[in-house]
């Protein structure tokens, strides 16, 4: 099982495109990742601070509405707050457009896949207000810019991000003997949520060897990590539990308890041998197969450990391992990846996608992926989207995938390609006989293109 340019694009990218040749070697794939982020230069999205500013404005207006002395005044402020929220929604929609365009109109797309993978590994979900729309800037500026660096740096950036702190209740993790903990009349104390997920999900993994005491003590080290009401990160010494705490055999804290302890413990968790295995396995499951070859995982974990968590070394280990190039159809694409790869195969769509009103774009992307089971930004739990193929292909979600395949291409591809050509564009030499036959036997172009996009060969990697 050796490198295949088509698999490089399909399994490790956003799919084949009529405009761009697939990557010609593993070296090219890695060199592109080491080089500048061209796609981000071409299409840029809003920053988290822009969303935070809108959130602040939104809250002020809601506050004014609740204190208004007349019904007319209350209504005016509420209307204004709705406008602000709508502005946030539009910014998020533009962020989605940026992501779609990068999938469709970039020559190399492994970086897009890594952004998706790591944003999911460090899942954050916020609800309500304008903050609910701030996923894309988190993905872009916190995750994407670090996917080719060291795991420890990515971990620290994600865990210390306001979205993560708010999502996993870290802002209500208060040391019982901290100034706030001692003076509080209400029941306030430790909240282990972030600490537990950092160990269980982000670093060591749930099957690793650690104890409840480690979780508890990590929560103690985390006390002080918080956010302001304006969704900016802050170290709040009033919440910090004084003392020293042992996590996995090392002691943190002491007299100058502070952010330095948090960074130190995260560095140590990143360097833990169990973390190397956990991250290697997760990457292999996401990119290669629901049940990856153990030799592939071992090889990647060894590269993680030997390089001190250099993610480029881990990607190189994955790509150079023969198991990564098993020609059998791999995992089912997540809905967003499915839609993006279909738009990429349909091409000609860049101008259309760039000009489409955001609501129309939403209709063929976010609204459609929601019907396929992936409501962008609304993942259920901190462990992110499911990997199992059987989760994504149910009667209802498959019906919505088929319906999308039959209906959406008309809106972006003008003219519709000839299905007999399109089956080669989309699947290359991997097109099964049955799909080639169906593409040629369809009664209309729309139906033929739809059948290609609905085929397992296209929905799998």
């Amino acid at each position, binding site marked *: 099982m050796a490198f295949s340019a088509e698999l490089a694009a399909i399994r490790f990218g956003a799919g084949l495109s009529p405009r761009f040749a697939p990557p010609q070697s593993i070296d090219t794939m890695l060199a592109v990742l080491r080089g500048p982020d061209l796609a981000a230069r071409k299409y840029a999205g809003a920053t988290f601070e822009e969303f935070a500013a809108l959130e602040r404005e939104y809250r002020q207006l809601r506050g004014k509405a609740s204190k208004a002395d007349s019904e007319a005044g209350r209504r005016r402020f509420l209307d204004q707050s709705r406008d602000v929220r709508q502005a946030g929604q539009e910014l998020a929609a533009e962020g989605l457009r940026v992501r779609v365009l990068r999938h469709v109109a970039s020559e190399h797309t492994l970086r897009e896949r890594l952004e998706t993978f790591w944003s999911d590994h460090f899942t954050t979900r916020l609800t309500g207000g304008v903050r609910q729309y701030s996923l894309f800037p988190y993905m872009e500026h916190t995750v994407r810019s670090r996917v080719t660096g060291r795991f420890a740096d990515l971990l620290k950036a994600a865990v210390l991000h306001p979205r993560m702190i708010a999502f996993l209740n870290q802002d209500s993790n208060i040391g019982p003997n901290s100034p706030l903990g001692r003076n509080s009349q209400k029941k306030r104390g430790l909240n282990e*949520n972030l600490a537990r997920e950092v160990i269980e999900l982000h670093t060591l993994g749930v099957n690793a060897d650690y104890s409840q005491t480690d979780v508890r003590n990590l929560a103690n080290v985390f006390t002080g990590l918080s956010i302001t009401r304006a969704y900016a990160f802050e170290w709040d010494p009033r919440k910090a539990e004084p003392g020293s705490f042992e996590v996995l055999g090392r002691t943190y804290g002491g007299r100058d308890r502070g952010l330095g302890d948090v960074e130190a413990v995260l560095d140590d968790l990143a360097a833990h041998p169990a973390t190397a295995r956990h991250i290697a396995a997760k990457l292999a499951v996401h990119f290669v197969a629901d049940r990856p070859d153990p030799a592939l995982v071992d090889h990647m974990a060894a590269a993680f450990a030997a390089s001190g968590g250099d993610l480029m070394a881990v990607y190189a280990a994955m790509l150079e391992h023969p198991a990564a190039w098993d020609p059998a159809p791999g995992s089912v694409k997540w809905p967003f990846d499915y839609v993006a790869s279909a738009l990429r195969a349909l091409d000609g769509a860049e101008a259309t996608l760039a000009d489409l009103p955001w609501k129309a774009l939403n209709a063929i992307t976010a609204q459609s992926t929601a019907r396929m089971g992936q409501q962008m930004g609304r993942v*259920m739990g901190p462990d992110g989207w499911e990997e199992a193929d059987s989760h994504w292909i149910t009667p*209802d979600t*498959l019906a919505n995938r*088929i319906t999308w395949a039959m209906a959406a291409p008309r809106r972006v591809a003008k003219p519709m390609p000839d299905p007999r050509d399109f089956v080669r564009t989309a699947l290359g030499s991997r097109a099964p006989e*049955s799909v080639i036959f169906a593409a040629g036997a369809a*009664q209309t172009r729309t139906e033929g293109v739809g*059948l290609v996009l609905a085929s397992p060969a296209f929905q799998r990697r």
Partner: protein
Amino acid sequence: MAVSSSAALTRRMMLAGLGCSLAASPLVTPMTFAATPGDNRLVVLILRGAMDGLDVLRPVGDPDFADLRRVTLGKERAIPLDGFFEMHPALGDLKPMWDAGELGFAHAVATPYRDKRSHFDGQDILEAGIVSNDGVPTGQDGWLNRLVASLPGARAETAFAIGRGELRILTGAAPTSTWAPQTQLELTPHAERLLELVYHDDPLFRDAAASALTIVSDLEQEATMGDEDVEMGSMMSEMGVATSNKALLAMTEFAINRLRRDTRIASYSITGWDTHAGQANRIGGPLRNLAGTINAMKIGLGPEIWGKTTILALTEFGRTARENGSQGTDHGTGGAILMAGGAVRGGRVYGDWPGLAEADLYDRRDLMPTADVRSYAGWAMRGLYGLGVSDLERGVFPGLDMGRDPGIILG
């Protein structure tokens, strides 16, 4: 098509109460497969947005009630039930069901969720049925899924999550089915054959597509049965019934059709309960939707299946005991469960009433919960599916003490 007139009329009128062009016809023979886990049906309706239990099931016998509630109760007269509680007038269509002993309530109940009063966390905990020490939901699976996992003979069709919204309650390792009635799959017969060819060698896609096509063709068949649609449309408008909530109608219709076949468990959501302002005008709509849904179930399922059916309507938490400054109520703690069905021992209100004096309230603001929502759900599952209490306390609701059997299920 000859339809027995009185039965058809009743059914039509009841369905019209929901504004429902229901195609679940008594003419369709219900099929029961021996391989399914028993014959009992459980429907869990999630009332998202926090239903105000104190308005829906009013403790008029409590001396402190009248002071707490004034404008939110509206002008219409409530429906006396047992001398102590009265039912919101918008549930009036359910009064015959109460009289027949098929409608009951439990009051002053809550999940273990306390203090933060966030809809999303509250719903997550209601559906997960587990909380960690920090009061946050753990894991992604829901308790109805864990019920399915413990039913011998359960298959994917045994339990249906219905609708487009997230239904965590049925998410998990046990295979269940999901379907949103709005989902369409319109393929020409030619395309359908080509798709079968394309899916032939991939069992995951082949089986899912086959199920989807079966469901869609069932729905089409049901929709074309008889010519009742037109007639019902005119009847509904004659009765002045709103048909605004089409998605709910479609979900109910779909649920009925599944439950008449081999589905035993179904869940979906009814929204609109977050009545922070102008509650007297706003809560009637969702309550009529709830009443219409339950009446449609009774008529659509037919007497035999209705006799084996339990509907539980659950919400994430109750609302403040006192009215707020905008003629509504804010997020609270203790609330109410509505239960209906031929399998339910109704005509009564279950629970220990904590009182409404300020010192009796939770946090001096909310109805004090005196029972866990999950213990009622647990006893319902025990009664319907014969699960052992220890299995329920370990497997379905880990860490829960179900307490004494309130006896909500007949038999």
